[in-house]
């Protein structure tokens, strides 16, 4: 087990380094940030001077080494756009994104899994067909369109929910939370649905097909023969055996939720890291973009690690094979 974790960590470092190279080299082609940083009247000399000061004239390998060296110490420099330290800029935005992603994930899990179980158990029932049809919408409509439609219906027409923003937040230490105010909770609803809908659909379809599969197996028949209650069969035996792929997908999708919250955050003006990233791209704000990419890389690596460890908990077969087990399936 320990060797497995160590090996995983080593792999993670390699992955992060690769992300660093990609991020860095990509940004060399984003354009000249100087033009975005200064006003139209700034003289050519002032521009050249700023370029030198920012180290944009150094050779690429030197710039890269500086970048990695500073990144390891958590130093990403000052944002070109706001002149604030990048680390703090991102840290301030992290709570908004994490709370949104968490709510979206909970929404997807607690609606998607039961819907999947239901449609798996009663595939021919009319409500199952309805769920299937609705889920088609979730999978085929682009996120921004769903967001705009929800805003139109619930904010512009019905005036029930706010059209954008986070509402009132409460500060706990450095963390700002939506969960403690009424307007904060209301503000969470539409973006969470928008962000979670695709995942919900995915989970529902996954659980459904897994359930259909499992319900045909011998041990379910045997369980029925033993006279177990439906409840015990469905949830104790069937659902539990569908969980390994569900956990893999949920885990990876949680990463995707955080990383791809970009679109949802832009639509709802949600002040999270995704929105920060978009603003930074428009501005060629290289320090912020680099830090963001590394952060997302780190997040995916951590989530993958956690998912791998969770298999041990869920699937006893892996435990009995010992720590060297190679887990396939993702």
């Amino acid at each position, binding site marked *: 087990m320990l060797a497995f974790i160590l090996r995983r960590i080593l792999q993670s470092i390699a992955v992060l380094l690769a992300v660093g190279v990609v991020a860095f080299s990509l940004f060399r082609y*984003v*354009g*000249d*940030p*100087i*033009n*975005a*940083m*200064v*006003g*139209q*009247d*700034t*003289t*050519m*000399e*002032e*521009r*050249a001077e*700023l370029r030198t*000061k*920012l180290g944009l004239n150094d050779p690429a390998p030197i710039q890269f080494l500086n970048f990695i060296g500073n990144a390891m110490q958590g*130093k990403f*420099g*000052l944002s*070109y*756009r*706001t*002149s*604030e*330290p990048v680390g*703090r*800029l991102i840290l*301030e*935005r992290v709570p908004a994104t994490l709370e949104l992603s968490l709510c979206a994930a909970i929404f997807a899990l607690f609606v998607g899994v039961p819907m999947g179980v239901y449609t798996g158990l009663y595939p021919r029932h009319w409500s199952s067909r309805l769920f299937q049809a609705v889920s088609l919408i979730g999978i085929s409509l682009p996120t*921004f369109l769903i*967001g*705009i439609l929800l*805003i*139109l219906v619930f*904010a*512009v027409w019905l*005036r029930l929910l*706010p*059209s*954008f*923003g*986070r509402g009132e937040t409460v500060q706990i230490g450095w963390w700002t939370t939506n969960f403690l105010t009424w307007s904060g909770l209301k503000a969470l609803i539409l973006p969470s649905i928008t962000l979670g809908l695709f995942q919900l659909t995915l989970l529902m379809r996954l659980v459904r097909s897994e359930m259909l599969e499992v319900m045909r197996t011998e041990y379910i028949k045997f369980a029925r023969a033993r006279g177990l209650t439906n409840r015990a069969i469905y949830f104790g035996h069937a659902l539990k055996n569908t969980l390994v792929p569900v956990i893999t997908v949920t885990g990876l999708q949680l990463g995707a939720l955080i990383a791809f919250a970009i679109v949802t955050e*832009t*639509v*709802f*003006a949600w*002040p999270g890291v995704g*929105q*920060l990233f*978009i*603003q930074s791209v*428009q501005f*060629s704000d290289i320090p912020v973009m680099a830090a963001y990419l590394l952060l997302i890389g780190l997040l995916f690596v951590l989530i993958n690690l956690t998912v791998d460890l969770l298999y041990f908990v869920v699937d006893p077969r892996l435990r009995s094979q010992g720590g060297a087990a190679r887990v396939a399936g993702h």
Partner: protein
Amino acid sequence: MNFSFRHSLALTAVMCAGLSMAPAADAKTFKWANSGDVSSMDPYARQETFLLTFTQNIYDPLIRRDKDLKLEPALATKWGQTDPTTWFFDLRPGVKFHDGTPFTADDVVFSLNRANGPGSNMGSNFVSVKEIKKVGDQRVEVTTKYPDPLLADKWAAIVMMSKAWAEKNNAVNSADMTKNEENFATRNAMGTGPFMLKERKAGEKTILVNNPNWWDKPLHNITEVIFTPVANPATRIAALKAGDIDMTYEVPPADTETLKKDANVKVLEGPETRVVFLGFDQERPELLESNVKGKNPFKDKKVREAIHRSIDVDAIKRTVMRGQSFPTTLMVAPGINGYMKDLDKRPALLKPEEAKKMLADAGYPNGFETGMDCPNDRYVNDEKICQAVVAMLAKIGVKVNLRAQTRNLYFAKILRKADLKPGETSFYMLGWSPAQTYDVHNVFEALIQTPNGATKKGQFNAGGYSNPALDKLADAMEQETDKAKRDAMIKEATKLYVDDFAYIPLHQQAVVWAARKNIELVQLADNSFPLRFVQVK
């Protein structure tokens, strides 16, 4: 478009309507949005309209601009020149900063030096300045290296900060992006202005509250202002329709028509002071991207004329701009000092055969081929305008190969380099507004004068147009303090570049704002939005 129209526009922008929503007795909150956030609370961090207009709600300048962009007293009650190189500013007595400390000449000297200091982006307003000194508690004197008749105009953009506050909070200089240290003034503010900064969350929201001790009689009636950046245009429009915001600063052209149909919303449109134009490479002996070798067709005035007179700006207005542009023949807009209304007459459009004949006379009977550069995210419909131009020029046998790209790549390509080498382009688009001075000289100096490394003239004259007679006039008007003489010079210089077909001015794009019906506000032609004129009914 003419003066009286623009005038009436500024006035009619002060629109009022009933339909009040039974608000609470005195607390009036004004919520508004823009596509992006203010990049800093530090008023010298960037010379950019949005930052300047936002920070001027908190900070006052010595002299400010009124509804018609004319100068009026603010923290200085009187100003002028005692001799051609000396300016004086008499300060308003009894003004207090938001923290209650008095505003004095020391603050003025400090602020001006800070704006001209390291980290500040306002340095170009101080090129002529030799010395700034305090003369008594209520007077500041400025000596210049040469006569600078536009100093007061330029300084309407420079607001006054508190010396004691900046020193106490270690913000004596603007935050220098090149040093890894942050600055108190990027997130906090201490001015004398009509509003006080209550809360600043960069990228999320910024809250201002009314300053009850403001020196001026407030024309607004708001007690609290909440500003939120909302990047997605559709969300911004939805929020306005839903009443979640009272006003949005940038309205996409496509949404204007739908908004006009909404009974709770009004749309405010007016011409911006920026002129969007096309320029030619008239400097290289051979164009970078052309099938003509050994010579540069754009050096020939006949060729420039044929192209200039084949571009139908009214058609561009009708189709590409959906009516939201104000065609112009001059490089400055109405409202800018030095705009010559009687010269703003576009020469008649040529029929394709006439233009072809003109090109043939110039030695291009079969037309020619050229590259063209265009931004795709800088001006309203920039790429589409260029595409329309490509189609119009195809009719006269000029084959244009268009390359449209994002602004950061675009400007790096087409602008002159630091050593003033010409930009890497043959035919390009640019927009310009003399936003510092609101005076035509800025346009001559930056765009039309011959590029010169020593005098720093013509730095943005990417194509290298050059006319020595015009250079001389522009240099003379910079220091001429007699208005009649100066106007004559401006007129002559304007004629020169118009007759040379030096550039192809296209139009001013429209500034489009939208607000709820119960909001009264003033839309200024330079796209600035002072909260001090906002009334919530």
